[in-house]
């Protein structure tokens, strides 16, 4: 008797908890695309099918547990086979599964139809950031975690979008079909935004595709879903969906800004200016491996503070940052950072944390190097 009470209470508590939890937004999000809605409805359908089967099966089980206890004087019957019953309870699940497979197949076919996209975006996973190329538009940028390290370590309070905020989100137009091409520079990553129901692995050397047509403007957040090394938890995805007109304006603005930054290459930069810009770049790009204080985490990530190899030889330093180190965790930044950013971050590394070379590496120098090298 006591046991039945415990079981019943447990069951009621569980179902009550799940009910309230599902109602409170702990379920899969409905999302903002037609596909995400379809997936959500598939999810809810199969969920309720499972609940119904569960109630029947567990109902029969707990009835037996209660009814046929020896302490209530139950005598064991002596049957052990019934082919008809067995065939029936094999056929019923098959029918349920077929019924489930039909809508699932339809949805899957929609998800695989990447044809006739209005915009192509190439998404490249890198340890540990995302790079977005608007194909054919000459707009490309990397998107880094924007949450301060002090929030991670607990030195400052965690803000609302802790670990789900980036310096530059992927901007996409609503009501247009966007094809997403996925690849990776190093290990396998997986680009995932729950509200868009897009999750696709980014495989080095191979290209995958997926697509999205967002119905409502807004900011949608997600994360890398495939274990990709140390900072797997720290490479979020943020998509900002805007009206098509605003998107076109944004794209034009980005092209303009890129041109502006290119202009900055030609002028002479002050050391302080470079240090300021460099600190910013270092914080988003380098600090995750080489640490905010330049101490690195040897042997994988060498210290930069007091590193004589780079301090004695500026060319070696520049080459390492620009071209990376083959077969190591050090990527080439020639295509992801512009000359101003490269010059600034190298200058910063040569003058921060007790490194006092006093040298300012000029953007023009880097630009020249990139051009001629």
């Amino acid at each position, binding site marked *: 008797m006591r046991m039945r009470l415990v079981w019943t209470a447990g069951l009621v508590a569980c179902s009550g908890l799940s009910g309230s939890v599902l109602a409170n937004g702990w379920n899969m999000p409905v999302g903002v695309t037609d596909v995400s809605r379809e997936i959500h409805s598939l999810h809810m359908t199969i969920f309720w099918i499972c609940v119904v089967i569960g109630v029947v099966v567990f109902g029969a089980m707990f009835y037996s547990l209660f009814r046929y206890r020896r302490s209530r004087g139950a005598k064991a019957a002596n049957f052990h086979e019934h082919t008809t019953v067995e065939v029936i309870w094999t056929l019923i699940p098959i029918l349920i599964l077929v019924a489930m497979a039909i809508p699932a197949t339809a949805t899957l076919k929609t998800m695989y139809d990447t044809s006739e996209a209005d915009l192509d975006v190439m998404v490249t996973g890198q340890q540990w950031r995302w790079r977005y190329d608007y194909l054919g538009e000459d707009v490309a940028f990397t998107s880094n975690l924007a949450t301060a390290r002090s929030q991670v370590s607990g030195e400052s309070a965690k803000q609302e979008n802790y670990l789900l905020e980036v310096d530059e989100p992927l901007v996409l137009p609503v009501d247009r079909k966007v*094809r997403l091409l996925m690849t990776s520079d190093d290990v396998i990553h997986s680009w995932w935004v729950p509200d868009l129901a897009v999750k696709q692995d980014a495989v080095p050397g191979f290209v995958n*595709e997926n697509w999205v047509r967002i119905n409502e403007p807004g900011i949608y957040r997600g994360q890398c879903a495939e274990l990709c090394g140390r900072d797997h938890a720290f490479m979020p995805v943020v998509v900002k969906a805007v009206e098509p007109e605003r998107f076109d304006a944004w794209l034009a603005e980005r092209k303009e800004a890129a041109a502006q930054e290119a202009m900055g290459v030609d002028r002479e930069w002050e050391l302080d200016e470079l240090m300021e810009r460099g600190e910013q770049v270092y914080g988003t790009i380098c600090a995750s491996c080489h640490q905010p204080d330049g101490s690195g985490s040897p042997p994988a990530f060498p210290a930069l503070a007091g590193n004589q190899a780079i301090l004695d030889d500026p060319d070696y330093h520049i080459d390492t940052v620009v071209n990376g180190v083959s077969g190591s965790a050090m990527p080439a930044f020639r295509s992801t950072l512009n000359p101003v950013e490269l010059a600034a971050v190298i200058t910063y590394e040569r003058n921060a944390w007790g490194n006092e070379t006093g040298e300012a590496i000029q953007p023009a120098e880097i630009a020249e190097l990139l051009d001629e090298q």
Partner: protein
Amino acid sequence: MVGQRSDDTRREIRRTVAKTLVALVGMCVFAFALVPLYDVFCQVTGLNGKTSNQAQALAHEAVDQDRVVTMQFITRGSPGLPWSLEAHTRQVRVHPGQSAEVHFSFENLGDQASVARAVPSVTPSQASLHLRKLACFCFQNQRLAPGERFEAPLVFQLTRDLPADIKTVTLVYTLYRQDAAPSRGKGTSTRGGDA
């Protein structure tokens, strides 16, 4: 007790063990055979979007004037290789059955000679079955002296049996260094660089 087994039993056991060992060896062979099998399977089904690494002959067939397919070209570099690879044409529109030629240029921006190869990948992956490359720089390694520039054509054809729902085919080339074998496995201590 082991000691009291009859000869019959021992023979039976030996026979069973022999059979399982045969199965075991068979599975070991099968495990390694899976690698070429996978390649064959991919070539037959276009599973992973890999294209043939040998020049193929032009399929002589009438050009399908009613269909237009957009062929996109994307080029990517890789860390530690100071090369650039550029497609002169970002995309071309072709009819299935028609052959077309596009040009790419390689440039070694580094101060040392190096060897690399452009590794292709096609999406949607099924399109790789219908993409015939008559000439391609991707069939062999390229060696470039410091500062050397090299232009190379890609001649290709999308055959008419390309599934009707494919309207855009994207061909991505990723440059991979081939000479200095990456220091894989030698440990993290050799990785990381200095900046």
